[in-house]
């Protein structure tokens, strides 16, 4: 009945018993690359943990550095922890409302194909890819030299009050930088809410605004928090945007006003690795500082990733 398969076509390509060496090699090589990356990650974390832990002490994290920051006996990082925390907190206050409202517009109001939506999305993608040092220049050119100097002129300051690096300008610069993070995370959370929930609310006579405020946003709260946490962990480790906008090499006191400068963990790690005249002596301090910074960003990141995974699971279950 059926035409016999020509011998050539029935040849070795269909012979499943032959070991597939090329595939094995390919799988092996790509697998090696994958686990190579994971190994590098483990090596970085392990190395920092191994060398950093001995340098970590209660005195180190709870003292304001008064004497030599490069001496193991007097080095301390409380000022830096406080400075980093303050700048990310102020940043959060600014970035969350703007990010959440933008995400609400994109998911709830915008027609998916409209030109505005497309331009906003391009702008967000672009903002996420602007080099961090350019944000630093922007902070200097816009916040300090334009807004700050003009504010000083308007309020007739005797010396520069706003027209100089301050924790406020550093935080605002970071807020501009982390806006895409918050928008994307919030958008994900909003999309995960089943449309039926909105439709039910609208069918019961709630207006659109009521639906958003009372149904959509409360349900999206975990996702919004994730966005905030991811933004904070991203901002906490960034140094380049604050270089010219607010960070100080050394301050004897903690910052107390919005117009004060501040010390910063990441910047301090940079200072320790480039400004020390005896690297062997400062090495343990550098390791310990880096470890504190990593612990801060990673604990935040881990929370963000876990909450995000849960939301994604709920989203899959909901559809």
């Amino acid at each position, binding site marked *: 009945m059926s035409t016999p398969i020509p011998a050539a076509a029935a040849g070795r390509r269909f012979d499943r018993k032959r070991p597939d060496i090329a595939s094995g090699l390919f799988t092996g090589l790509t697998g090696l690359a994958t686990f190579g990356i994971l190994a590098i990650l483990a090596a970085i974390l392990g190395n920092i943990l191994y060398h950093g832990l001995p340098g970590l002490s209660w005195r180190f994290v709870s003292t304001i550095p008064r004497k030599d920051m490069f001496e193991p006996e007097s080095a301390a990082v409380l000022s830096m922890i406080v400075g980093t925390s303050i700048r990310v907190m102020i940043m959060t206050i600014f970035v969350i409302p703007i990010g959440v409202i933008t995400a609400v517009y994109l998911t709830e*109001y915008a027609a998916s194909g409209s030109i505005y939506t497309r*331009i906003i999305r391009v702008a967000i993608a672009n903002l996420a890819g602007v080099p961090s040092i*350019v944000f630093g*220049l922007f902070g200097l050119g816009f916040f300090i*030299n334009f807004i700050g100097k003009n504010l000083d002129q308007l309020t007739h300051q005797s010396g520069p009050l706003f027209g100089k690096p301050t924790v406020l300008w550093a935080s605002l610069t970071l807020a501009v930088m982390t806006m895409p993070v918050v928008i994307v995370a919030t958008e994900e959370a909003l999309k995960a809410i089943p449309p039926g929930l909105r439709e039910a609310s609208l069918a019961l006579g709630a207006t659109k605004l009521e639906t958003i405020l009372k149904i959509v946003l409360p349900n999206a709260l975990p996702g919004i928090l994730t966005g905030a946490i991811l933004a904070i962990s991203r901002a906490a480790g960034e140094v*380049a945007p604050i270089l010219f906008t607010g960070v100080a090499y050394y301050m004897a006191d903690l910052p107390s006003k919005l117009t004060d400068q501040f010390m910063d963990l*990441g910047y301090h*790690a940079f200072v320790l690795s480039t400004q020390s005249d005896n690297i062997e002596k400062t090495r343990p301090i550098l390791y310990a500082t880096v470890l504190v910074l990593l612990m801060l960003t990673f604990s935040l990141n881990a929370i963000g990733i876990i909450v995000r995974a849960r939301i994604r699971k709920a989203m899959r279950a909901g559809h």
Partner: protein
Amino acid sequence: MGCSIRASPFRSARPDPTQPFPRLPHRYSDTAKRPSGWMGIHRGHNARPLEWIAEKFIFTVSLSAIAMVFLIFLFVGREALPVFLGDTDSALVQTVIPSKDMEKIAPDRLARYLGMSVSELKTKDADTLRTMMEIREEAANEVPAAVRDDKDATANTTEWKYLLKPHQWTGYSKPEYIWQPVSAIHKYNLVPLVIGSLKTTLIGLAFAVPLSLAAAIYVSQLAPPSWKEWIKPGIEFLSGIPSVVLGAFAFLVLAGFLHDIFGYRYRLNAFVAGIALGLTAVPLIFSIAEDALTSVPRSYVQAALALGASKWQTAWQVVLPAAAPGVFAAIVLGFGRCIGETMVVLIASGNASVVSWDIFDSTRSLTATIAAEMAEAVNGGHHYRVLFMLGTMLFAVTFATNLLGDAVMHRLKKQR
């Protein structure tokens, strides 16, 4: 009673199957294509001013992302504008205007002479201006005679020919590209910095692209599905490491480790910085490429396997070409990431501005230059302006790569 289901008004509202189905608005939005009156307020019984205000407010706020991109371009560019327009003068010895001639010269010329804008000039009184001019005069007289007689002392080094072309400075045997902004004669040649940036970026990509593409192929095509859930977040965890930490790691560990293998001369060099830079790009490239590879329709793979292709032939000759635009976008965005990275290069590259393509030479990138020198540049001075010009260039380059990468990814999403 007579009120049967058959007589229910809902029955009659049922669509007639012979008629085409009525078009429904594709979103639940009540603003979609509704007739509305002046500014959308007078909509009969549907008028809801609060809703209208809220919607307009939300729309306005959502434009802030666009506004920010604009403002960045505007204000970084604004500080650099005098260099682009040729309005800065960085010559060491300038024609001195005697302070007694102050009243005779035009305000815009005076403003430029004193390095301020015309509006700033108006806020100062005559005595202050006279003092400033006297200071300029004294400073000019204090320049040592040997330097003053230098043929380059009157050269405005922010002109394009000095910025881009090699110049034979006094004391050099041949024309050279030199970036030396803090010497007596400010040398602002951009070529060493551009080469430094490109060199570290290309080393970083040469390291990151094969590694992350291989990992993306493995995770999306070859790995057991249950592993994927662990490997993917694992690699993306790398993006959570702050770049200053990667820089410090490169400085503390990587430099020594690679030195033991390659035995190069300078401990911190383009190669060390490039590898560390690659590590910052790996999670980005991996994540985009993996997404692109995963979204290749499963039927392609099944068809290839059914035709007798082996697993690696399927992955290499079917899946990878089908995902090529996504992979391209990943590489383009990785390039933008690498060329804009600051702290890693600042800490690990050695920061010597030399023109050399040797990967084991110390090097200085655009980003590191801005970060390291802004603190010592006078606000509003020529050094400051040139650094902002570097920033504008960086922004332009990353803007282009982002647009390109985004356009490719958008087209992909549309197709699927």
